[in-house]
């Protein structure tokens, strides 16, 4: 930078601990690392673009109102019908049964781990929960079809070969670790002082757990439920293998239905024939799925932040 002629020599700069040599290497490294960070931004952009563009084309041909309120889903037939309600109801139905299992058992496990189990027991039991979380979903799907459905039938329930109940129950087991670990984190964050105070007043474990800890950790616990819903909505393989691919509008868990994810998985595999409206339904459904899970995630993040704030 040239000093304009005639200007005074600047006063001595204040002492600085910064090195006087320029470290170009440092700048390069910082740039490289920033580039790494850019990958995730590009990924999000990619997801949004790859979903939005064909989905908008789709909605130019099929009115969003028809899509969101129509009750017949037959996009590949002629004449085609694009009412997505059966898919949404299917997703909702499976999610309901999944949470019916995951919430009580997940929360119960969390309370046990947080309030009752000794550190030694915790060290053994927590990894076992992690194992449950690590099982690939295709394995859960196989289990639902080959072990759970026959079991339900032997119990006298007239389930169809592909049905919501088997898939929902197994999905619930899959979600137990999610709910358990997040709830347990929330409960662990409750200051010990609260517990000690309650014990000091003569409360027993039951009272402390239900009246002190759980309410105190409530926002974290709810966050875990919301995350559970999000994962249930986005789960594909269990549904593809065990719940069926027929877009039926029914809440009956003994029947088979199709869900948002099952439709994408069944229709999109192999090849996507380009250009036609049927092809674009995959993106419209994908966009719906993405928006639902996005909203759930934002709610969940807000809730987690809320419980973190209270005690930090």
């Amino acid at each position, binding site marked *: 930078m040239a000093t304009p002629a005639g200007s005074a020599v600047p006063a001595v700069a204040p002492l600085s601990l910064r090195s006087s040599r320029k470290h170009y290497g440092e700048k390069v490294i910082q740039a490289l690392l920033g580039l790494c960070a850019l990958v995730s931004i590009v990924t999000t952009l990619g997801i949004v673009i790859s979903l939005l563009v064909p989905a908008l084309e789709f909605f130019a041909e099929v009115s969003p109102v028809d899509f969101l309120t129509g009750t017949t889903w*037959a996009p590949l037939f002629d004449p085609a019908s694009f009412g997505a309600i059966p898919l949404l109801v299917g997703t909702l139905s499976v999610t309901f049964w999944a949470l019916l299992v995951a919430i009580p058992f997940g929360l119960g496990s969390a309370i046990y781990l947080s309030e009752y189990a000794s550190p030694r027991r915790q060290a053994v039991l927590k990894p076992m929960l992690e194992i449950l979380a690590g099982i690939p979903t295709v394995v859960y799907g196989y289990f639902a079809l080959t072990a759970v459905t026959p079991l339900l039938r032997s119990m006298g329930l007239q389930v169809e070969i592909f049905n919501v109940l088997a898939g929902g129950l197994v999905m619930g087991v899959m979600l137990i670790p999610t709910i358990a670990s997040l709830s347990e984190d929330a409960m662990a964050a409750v200051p010990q002082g609260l517990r000690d105070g309650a014990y000091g007043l003569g409360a027993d474990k039951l009272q402390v757990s239900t009246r002190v800890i759980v309410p105190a950790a409530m926002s974290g616990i709810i966050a875990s439920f919301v995350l559970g819903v999000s994962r249930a909505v986005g789960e594909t393989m269990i549904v593809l293998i065990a719940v069926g*691919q027929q877009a039926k509008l029914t809440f009956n868990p003994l029947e088979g239905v199709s869900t948002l994810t099952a439709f994408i998985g069944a229709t999109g595999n192999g090849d996507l024939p380009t250009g036609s409206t049927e092809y674009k339904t995959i993106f419209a459904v994908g966009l719906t799925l993405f928006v639902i899970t996005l909203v759930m995630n934002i709610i969940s993040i807000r809730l987690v932040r809320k419980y973190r704030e209270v005690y930090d």
Partner: protein
Amino acid sequence: MSARTLTRALVGLVLPLFALAAAGCGGGGSDGGGSISVDGSSTVGPYMTAAAEGFQKENADVRITVGVSGTGGGFERFCRVETDISNASRPIKEEEAAICAENDVEYVEFRIANDALTVVVNQENDWATCLTVDELNAIWKPGSTVDNWDQVKSGYPDVGLKLFGPGTDSGTFDYFTEEINGEAGASRTDYAASEDDNVIVQGVGGEKGGLGYLGFSYYEANDDTLNAVAVDGGDGCVAPSVETAQNGTYTPLSRPLFVYVKKSSFAEPAVEDFIGYVLENEIAIAEKVGFVPLNAEQLATAKNDYQTAVEEAQG
């Protein structure tokens, strides 16, 4: 163990896997062999898969992949120059041929087997042994609301009717709807649709009131869980079988199965040899996977077409 040792251990684990992967870098198969990509009908799929297995045993350097996107899906990829061979359970449609022409894809059609499109019911279904075309039409026509067996024919029990069938990309779907409902593609939409015939087998096999339709080979392979329904096409009930399909008495649901081969792919020795192998062993392959072989006349025609195509490619 310090973190440094840990790092070294992990690197020691990963490097051999790298070497493994590097071995996997060996090019796209253009080392002396050749690669053939096949896609299309899920009815014809098992036939071509069995053929590919047999062929690859004798020619280990040829890489064949077989997909089952459905007859329609297969043609899409074929006409977009993505595959060498397209399997089809119905002849190519005009619109599809037009797309191929647009993309300069010339092809040869080979009839490689016959099929008796089979209507299947659950093993425990002992009442529906024969259905007429009209009864099938009443069940499957667009807008049909038949949902119980007692609505199909008087005397049938009160058992819920659960329908399974191919999806719209399937040649089987096109063929069945054309023969039974009068127009290809005209069908009720509230059934469990899948491009994968195995799902239909699983579905019908698991539901007492199940009804579905699929290629004969899938019934043959699963005759312990499924029963075939005899079809009355106007001349009495005829059950599907190799004989009735070959002599034409199983109407209207006996049909030809095709493969379409790109003329430009014929120039490749791998493709030429493969198709030659398929035709040479047609009867054996068909019997192995439960298809209806071509009769002598049809086989001769196919072999003739093959010769012509080979000469064209070389000339």
